[in-house]
Structures are given as structure tokens and as C-alpha cells.
């Protein structure tokens, strides 16, 4: 009986995941099309910095799609933590800590990818600016790359920094 119930539950979850995945793909397509169209309209209107806005808006859309695509594994991990059984306050703290560590690991383990993308896109932007004859490109590139590296390193060290601040308190 329990096995039949769990099999039915797994089937329902699989169906819901399939719907959610389909809806996520539709939302991603619509969001990407509207974002690109808005950037195009902005460029037609003569607005500067359209590519920056486009880049800034496209990143969360892609991250959301990645989360939807890996929702099964994430949901499984969260479900295991939730069903581990919380008896007292210590258990509740451990539960929150486990959930928080899932988020922290997901962020920190993708920082390498974002750092590399930030570096490569910054350099390509500088190349395009150089082609356009914009002055002061090398200093702007140096500032941008330094910011990319600095924010990436600070993100990687965020847990340690938080530990230091908590230790001071």
C-alpha cells in the first residue's frame, strides 16, 4: 500500500515537474524575446547603454531557467532536509543551516563560471569600443576587470567574511 502510494506520488511529482519545465521554457522564450525587442526599440530610439541593460536583464532569466531545469535535484535535497524530522530548536537550526548551505554551495560553485563570463564579455566590449574609436578604453577595461575580479573574490570569501563579522559580535 505504501509502495503504491509512493509510486503514485512519484508519478504525480514527475507530471508536475514536466508541466513546470514546459512552463519554464515558455516563460524563458517569451522573456528573452521581449527583452531583446525592448533593447532593439531602445537602440532605435537612440538610447545609449542598451547592451548593458540587455545583459543585466538576460542573466536572471538564464539563471531562472537553469534553476527550473535542475529543480528535481534541488527539490529532492530540500525534501530530504524537510523530512529529516525536527524535534527541537537545535534541529530547526540544523534544518535552516542545511537549506542555507544548499543555496551557498549553488552560488559559490557557479562563481567561477560567472567570473570567466564577466572577464570575456568585458574584453569583448573593450574591443568593440576600440573599433568604434572611443577614447579611454584601456582604463575603462582595467576598471571593469578589476571590479569583476574583486566582486568575484568577495563572493567566494563571503562565508568567511560573515564568520568574521559574527565572531566580532
Amino acid at each position, binding site marked *: 500500500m505504501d509502495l503504491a502510494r509512493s509510486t503514485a506520488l512519484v508519478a504525480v511529482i514527475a507530471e508536475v515537474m514536466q508541466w513546470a519545465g514546459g512552463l519554464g521554457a515558455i516563460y524563458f522564450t517569451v522573456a528573452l524575446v521581449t527583452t531583446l525587442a525592448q533593447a532593439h526599440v531602445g537602440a532605435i530610439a537612440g538610447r545609449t547603454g542598451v547592451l548593458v541593460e540587455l545583459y543585466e536583464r538576460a542573466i536572471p532569466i*538564464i*539563471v531562472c531557467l*537553469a*534553476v527550473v*531545469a*535542475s529543480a*528535481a*535535484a*534541488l527539490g*529532492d*535535497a530540500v525534501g530530504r532536509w524537510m523530512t529529516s524530522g525536527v524535534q527541537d530548536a537545535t534541529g530547526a*537550526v540544523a534544518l535552516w*543551516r*542545511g537549506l*542555507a*548551505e*544548499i543555496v*551557498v*554551495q*549553488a552560488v*559559490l*560553485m*557557479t562563481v*567561477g*563560471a*560567472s*567570473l*570567466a*563570463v564577466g*572577464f*570575456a*564579455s568585458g*574584453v*569583448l566590449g*573593450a*574591443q*568593440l569600443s*576600440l*573599433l568604434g574609436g572611443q577614447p579611454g*578604453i*584601456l582604463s575603462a*577595461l582595467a576598471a571593469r576587470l578589476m571590479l569583476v*575580479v574583486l566582486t*568575484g*573574490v568577495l563572493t*567566494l*570569501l563571503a*562565508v*568567511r567574511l*560573515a*564568520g568574521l563579522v*559574527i*565572531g566580532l*559580535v
Partner: protein
Amino acid sequence: MNKRQKRGNAWRRLAILLTLILLLVSPAMPAQASNPQQDDPPSGSASVQPLVELVTNVARLFIQFFVFSSVAVFAVSVARGFWSAQIANLVGSPMGVSQAWLNIIAAVFIFILAVMSTTFVGIVFDAVRNYVDTSIPIPQF
């Protein structure tokens, strides 16, 4: 073999050399190779692994696009630099040729940065990875 054929061969050799450089540099992708938790995976890291792999694949796609685009932009920048030097020489501009040289040198420098970008990020990541911690401490107040 006439002059045009020789020039065409020189450009082809340059293109092959650039492709070889890209192929040599591309395996050093830091996004996945320099994973901070690769040696000592924390508990529950398996649950975020699909997300990390997905983001890494998307990032790899973007980086390939950026680096290969930078090859094309580099070629256009160098051609544009020489062309502007020719024009400056033609009209007798005293600063034109030196300005064109500066443009070409900047284009070469930025292109080298673009090709080596994944390697630079790998160096930064390797320097920091020993200090990365994902376990959240619970203080006793």
C-alpha cells in the same frame, strides 16, 4: 606564386595560428576545472551539482561566443588601424600614423587578454580556492 597569393597564404597561416592558440587555451576553462569544492565536496553538494553543471555549460557557450567574436573583431580592428594609417599618410597628417599604431597595439593587447581570459580567471580562482568555505558556522551567543 604572385604577391596576392603570398599575402593570402600569410593571412591563412595567421588564422591557423590563432585557431591553434584558441584550442590550446580553451581546455583551461576555470568555470568547471577550478571548482573550489572539487577536492573536498561538502555534504549536499550532489544536490546542487546539476544546477552547477548547467550554469557551467551555459557559461562555456557564452565564453566561446565572446572569444570567437573577439577573433573577428580583432581582425577588423587591425585592418581598420592600417587603413586609417594609410588615409592619414595620404592626407599628410603628422599624428595619424602614430595614432593608428597605438590603435593596433591596443587591439593586439586586448585580443591577447580575450584569448587568455579563462587562464587569468583560473589563476585568480586557484589563488582563492584554499580560502573558500561553504559551511555556515553557528555561533554561541
